[in-house]
């Protein structure tokens, strides 16, 4: 297992470099102009000069090379400077966003708190709710709980977030006035009152996001459990006299986790770049919103950097999922 892990980690480096190249070329090829949002009153020659000033005049491979250098060498230097007070990156050019003319990584770090508070929390909540629902639905197949659960999750998944988000805002913010409709990213939690305030502004986006996650994961959990509940070894375990709880929660659950682990691992990188619509509706302004506004503004350095960071997470979590398969089912061999 260890050799496999090391092999995968080492292999991920060229994979990621290749992915970075493909992303860069894709962004180059995609139609779009960073000057698109500049008002029409600015004449085209000025826009051309502005593009030059952004560095768009240089050839593609030079720009890619510069980005590689800035991301892999300069940014870690900045991080060590920040952590240890050193001066390595004092004069070095960092990856600069075209929209804000400021370093991309600073903005990414700025967006982390609300992304973690809202999107990561929603994912955790979603997973924690989905697992018991899936398990119980499978155990009591076709019971009232199962039917209701199926109905609610299917409707929840069919209804897209651009609708459910607005619906929830209209009900809870406009009609009832209980919860704020706009997330305040500058809010600091220092005491009980501010903590309650933070919870209040988190409830709606977390609900909307968790609904999507719960729907997906509970379906996979249920299907997988159903497959396993009819296996012979379950009958044996019951015959041996083990309690239902042990049979289901220890034996069946462990064997059913493989697809669920896959889906959960696929969903984690989505936290950091996928909740685009929900973030926009509630103005949570996390990493998803950063990515989509950067794409719309054709801010290539920002899109390239954030997308690449997502790629790293995707590759990493897929490796973790693969390793977990080995732990969950010892028969799975990679070597």
């Amino acid at each position, binding site marked *: 297992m260890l050799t496999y892990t090391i092999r995968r980690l080492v*292999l991920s480096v060229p994979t990621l470099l290749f992915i970075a190249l493909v*992303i860069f070329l*894709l962004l180059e090829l995609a139609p779009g102009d960073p000057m698109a949002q500049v008002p029409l009153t600015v004449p085209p020659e000025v826009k051309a000069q502005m593009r030059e000033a952004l560095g768009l005049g240089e050839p593609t491979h030079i720009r890619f090379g510069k980005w590689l250098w800035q991301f892999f060498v300069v940014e870690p230097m900045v991080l060590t400077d920040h952590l240890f007070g050193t001066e390595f990156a004092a004069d070095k050019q960092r990856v600069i966003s075209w929209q804000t003319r400021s370093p991309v990584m600073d903005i990414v770090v700025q967006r982390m708190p609300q992304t973690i508070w809202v999107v990561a929390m929603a994912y955790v909540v979603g997973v924690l709710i989905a697992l018991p629902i899936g398990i119980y639905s499978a155990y009591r197949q076709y019971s009232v709980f199962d039917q209701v659960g199926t*109905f609610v999750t299917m409707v929840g998944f069919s209804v*897209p977030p651009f*609708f459910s988000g607005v619906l929830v805002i209209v009900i809870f913010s406009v009609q009832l006035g209980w919860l704020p409709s706009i997330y305040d990213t500058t809010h600091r939690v220092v005491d009980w009152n501010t903590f309650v305030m933070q919870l209040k502004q988190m409830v709606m986006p977390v609900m909307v996001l968790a609904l999507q996650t719960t729907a997906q994961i509970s379906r996979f959990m249920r299907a997988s459990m159903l497959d396993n509940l009819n296996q012979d070894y379950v009958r044996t375990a019951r015959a041996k006299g083990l309690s239902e709880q042990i049979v289901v929660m220890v034996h069946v659950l462990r064997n059913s986790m493989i697809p669920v682990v896959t889906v959960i691992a696929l969903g984690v*990188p989505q936290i950091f770049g996928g909740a685009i619509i929900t973030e926009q509706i509630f103005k949570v302004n996390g990493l998803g919103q950063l990515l989509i506004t950067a794409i719309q503004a054709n801010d290539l350095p920002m899109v390239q950097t954030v997308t690449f960071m997502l790629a790293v997470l*995707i590759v990493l979590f897929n490796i973790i999922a693969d390793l977990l398969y080995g732990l969950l089912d010892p028969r799975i061999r990679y070597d």
Partner: protein
Amino acid sequence: MTDPTPETPPTKTPAPTPLGALSDPQPVAPPRSQWRDVWDQFKRHRGALAGGILFLLIIVVVYLGPLVWPIDATYIDIRARNEGPSWAHPFGTDQLGRDTLARMMAGGQVSIAVGLTAMLLALGLGSLIGVLAGFFRRLDGPLMRLTDLFLSLPLLPLLLVMVLLFRQALSSTFGPETGIFILIVFSIGVTSWMPTARVVRGDVLALKEREFVLAARSIGTTNFNLITRHVLPNVLSPIMVSATLGIANAIITESALSFLGLGFPPDFPTWGRLLNDATVYLQDYPERVFWPGVAISLTVLSVNYLGDGLRDALDPRIRGR
């Protein structure tokens, strides 16, 4: 002293009747095929039947409905705008006076066609790659790296590039409408197969080590037969779940595409688009979100129950219980 009496020869006992087990009566009926069994089990699944009937009903209404209700989905009758349900317009009208019922039916044709086709494409592609990666160790690495690549690509620029490259060519070869349809189905299919592939691969990896696979291999089953006869039916559960989630995803993604201008023309109704347009009017005319929302949910639910029934029917352990 006894005289030897002449012995009567022992009476010939009749030949014993062969054991029932060794007899070979002529078959009175052809043997039950596996698919007949599957269909029987499927019929018994109430939810699946309900789902199947609902699905067929939706398709009939959506494709044959316009013959009964002939109002054009794009016809603007400006004086009749923002009306509620009435005899002239059973579902009401939208902000330009277009009949909602007609738009729902026209939209349904497109949404279901796109949803089903895109979902089948994504499913097929995902299952193929997942099975190949899980089954053949040598293909696992490259295929999974390919999956990682596709997962990492940002969706919006990818779609823009695809539209840029292919719209003109498809339009001139197949005509504008079919061209756009192919483009959309292809875009959605090519960008949603990855989760299915990952999940299927995971299951196949586990399944590959089971005894029955070893047994089948030992009697010389070819890889192809191993996959189609033994592996695939057992990974049907996650595939069915992916199918259900895939249809909902395809319908909604289509609306996102047309919102970005990459899909059908703006006056072409689809359920996702209708839902999108109506969301702005949520507080003022809530019934306008109701119809497309319900339609999408019902379609997804019916596919879900169909999938449930199919999976149960194909599971030999449940059959005949």
